[in-house]
Structure formats: C-alpha cells, structure tokens
C-alpha cells in the first residue's frame, strides 16, 4: 500500500514536472523580444525586415541613420530562441551569412555582447541600436518592438 502511494506520488511529480516543462516551453516561445533604445522612434517592423537586418543586408533605419545590430553568442540559449522563434532561421545559417560578408569584404558582422545585461547597456548608449532580450529582462532603458 505504502509502495503504491509512493508510486502515485512519483507519478504526480512526474506529471507536474512535465506540465511545467511544457508550460515553460510555451512561455519560451514568446519569451524573446526585439528591442531598441527607449527613446528610439516608434516603428512597426515586419518579420522580413527584421530578418534582413539581422542578416546584415540592411544597415540603415528609414530616416537614414546608422543601424547597429547586437547579438548574443551563437550558442547562447536566448540567441538560439531568437533565431528560431522570431526570425525563423537556424543560428548556423546566420553565422554562415555573416562569415560570407566579413571574409569577402562586403559587410560587417553584428556586434557580439556576452550577456543580456550588456545587451541592455549597449541599447541604451548606442544610437540606432537593435537587439533582443528575454521579455522578463525588459527595463526602462529599452523598448520592445512588436512585429507587424
């Protein structure tokens, strides 16, 4: 009887853990958001435009000012999530695109930051910066960009 109870208890825990994992996965799917500085002009971007920007094939904002793209390292979970959920590309595809630009002299790679804290700091201090972050890390220095 006791053994049976223990079994139920384990099963309950497993189910709860599974449910949590599923919920967190769903939450993750919407968790990463594209950001710009808080004082940047209001702008609704399409997913296509965003992809062109992060592929470094568009380096200017509509007003003609410089755009500066920031990314996290290739194997950072937030970067992987951003690539898959927001851009709908694989991180290794983006790296290929950047390598082709850099090593043929036809473009620059995005600037790489080590952490989301550094991402936030750079957004606030670099004019025309664009990056991404987990939604829960948003603060008053940056503004989230919803896609149209």
């Amino acid at each position, binding site marked *: 009887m006791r053994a049976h109870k223990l079994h139920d208890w384990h099963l309950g825990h497993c189910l709860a853990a599974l449910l949590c994992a599923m919920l967190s996965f769903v939450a993750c799917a919407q968790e990463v958001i594209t950001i710009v500085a808080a004082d940047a002009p209001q702008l609704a971007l399409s997913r296509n435009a965003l992809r*062109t920007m992060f*592929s470094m094939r568009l380096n200017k904002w509509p007003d003609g000012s410089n755009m500066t793209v920031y990314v996290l390292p290739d194997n950072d979970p937030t970067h992987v999530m951003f690539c898959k959920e927001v851009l709908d590309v694989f991180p290794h*595809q983006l790296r290929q695109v950047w390598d082709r630009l850099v090593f043929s002299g036809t473009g620059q790679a995005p600037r790489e930051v080590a952490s989301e804290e550094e991402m936030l700091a750079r957004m606030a201090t670099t004019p025309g910066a664009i990056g991404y972050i987990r939604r829960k890390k948003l603060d008053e220095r940056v503004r989230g960009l919803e896609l149209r």
Partner: protein
Amino acid sequence: MSGYVGSNFAEPRRMRRLCARIGWAFCLAAGPAQALEFFDGDVQLHGFASQAAIRSNHNNNFLGPSSRETSLRFTELGLNVAARLGPRLNLAAQVVSRSAGADAHGALRVDFALADLNLQDTETSRLGLRAGRVKIPYGFYNSTRDIAFTRPGVVLPQSIYPERVRAFSDTLDGLAPYARLSAGEAELLFEAALGKPRLDDRETTVTFIGNGVRGRFEGDTAAIGRVMLQEQRGTWRLAYSQAQLRGDYRQGERDPLLKGRVKLHLSLLSAELNLEPWSFTAEHVFGYAGNTGLGIFRPDDGLPFEGAYLQGAWRAGPRWQWFLRYDSYYQDRNDRDGTWLASHTPLPSHAAYARDRTLGVRFDVSPSFMLRAEYHRVNGTAWLPVLDNADSGRPPQRDWDMFMLLGSLRF
C-alpha cells in the same frame, strides 16, 4: 609569388613559418568566436587559421608531395579589418598568407582592400559601389574560398573552383557595383566586378602553357556578374554567374613563345535547397579556356570544359555534419573519355577528366574551432596541380584515393 618557385626557397619558408606562428598565436590569444572591436565597434578585426593534412596514393600529388608523405603544405592564415566611417561609407581589407603545395609558399598578400559606398539602403532595395581590390563574386563560394568555415569541405569542389587556375578567379582591381531587391520573402541580389584580375601565380601559367614556361601572365581585363534569387530564411537559393577573364603573356628570357593572350569564359548555374537537417547543393559550369598569338610553339588553341557537382549534407546534431559529394570535370566536353587527348598528345586519356566521390564529416569543437575529415575516391587526374606532380618522375595514375584532415580556427 611566381618569383619564389624555382628560385630561393629558404626565404619564403622562413616567412611561412613565421606567419604561421603569428597567425596561430593570434587566434589562440583571441579566444572565443568573438571579433575584436575598436572605436565602439565601428572597427572590427576578424581572422582565420587553417591547417590540413593530406595523404594520397599512386603518385597522385595534391597540394604537396601527398603520395610520398602526409603533406602539411596546405595552410591558410588571414586577418581582416572592416571599418564603418559613416552611414554611407565602409572600408574593408584582408591580408592572407596561403601555402598550397608547390605553388603558393605562404607569402603575405592583400586579398582585398576596398571602399564601399552605399547609395541606397531601404527595406526593399539596396544599391552601392565598391572600389579597390575586390573578391570575384562567382558561384556560391568563390569570394570566401580561402576560409575553411565557409567551404562545404576541406577543399572546394575542384570542377567549379579548381586550385589549378585559381588566380583567374581570385581577386581583381577595379569596380564592383551591387544591388538588392526584396519582395516579401524573396530577395534578388546582384553583384558584378570589372577590372584587372590578379594573374601572377605559377600554377595558372603552367596549366595554360605547360611546364617549363619561361614567361608569366599579367591580368588584362575581367568582367564578372552574378544574379542570385533567394528565399530570405535561406530555404533555397539560385544563382547564375557569368565571367570573362583575359590575360597577357609576358615573355621571359630567351622565350620561344611570343607575346600572346589567354582567355577564360565561364557560365555557372548554382542551386541550393536547405530542408533541415538536410541540405543539397549543386553547381554546373560551362566554360572555354584558350590562348592566341603565342607563336608556332604554342599554336592557337581552346578547350570547351564542363564541370558539375552534387552534394548532400546531413546535420546530425548541433556539432556534427556529414556529407556525400559527386564531382565531375571534363577539360574538353567533346573528348570526355580522353581518346583524342591520348592519341594526339603524350598525355594519357585519364588526364582529360576527373570524377571524385567524397565522403566527409565536420565536427564543431566550439563556435570558433572546427575539424574536418574527408575521403576522396577519384577516377581521372584532370584537376591535379601540374607543379605538385612535375618532379616525381612517375606519372599520376587513373584511379586514386585521398584522405584529408583539417583544423580551422576563426574569430
């Protein structure tokens, strides 16, 4: 570079070793995949370093004396800087030291050095002009052919990107306009390059004229254009490249040849399909290589060549990638089996073609360091470098095997 061959070997070797040490040390010091950034990121410094080990059999040497010993004579080192000077102007330059068998001995050269003026840059269109020394935009891989991380193997498919005439397709000094048009998820990219090609390596001269040649080539004019249509997420891309390159022959001392010209015409179709974890790439070239005005010892001649490859790759996980490739090349598409070649020249019939079946694997140790291993089963010798096989005294055989290893760092 040509001056090094057959003259003073000691100096370039010392230089090569020095460059290798500096390059590796620099890359190791730089640590992870991150570029070095200055002036708040407006200036970026990137680099790469690759070393291969090649072993083959049956007297068939590829990039060094690989049939007699494990050849380590395939080393690529490079450092590049890109600077953003304003919303419209960018500068970029790259120096490369490349050792590749008997031809390239690691001398430092400027791979590209250009100013990029951007005239228009919006969500739907882009237009600009690059000037200086630019890479030739040919096919999917030519403009980054020395960077192992961007290649689909230890070496590129030799039918389309041969080591033998690489100078013809490497860089040129001139102008390079570019444009992008975007509509929905489709992008149309256009790049062209016009100017004077760098045409000074020994292997290219020997391939066109023959071993023992006393003079050298000098680039005359080159015009290359590439149109690429691609799906923005990279699911597929299609490209068409067209190139016309001309060079002048400059006589050497007591040269039996006259001042003449060589030319190369190429039409290349490229296609890629990415269905993760699978990806398929194919390219097909039709070309013509010829010479005129070299005199009676080298009568006017031309060959219509053809090459194609199909590669299927499978990403087995975030770090592993396997591929299979079939690559074929015919130096004269009217004489695919080499019958005419064997009956009219001292060369064997298998010098007219090369069919290469390759199995390869790539392992990413970290985002900045990768390893590759490759096995080639080759039938024919058409793309074997002439200089690597000139001194052995034993002719290359028709059927041969090659095993290659490569380690590559980039930051």
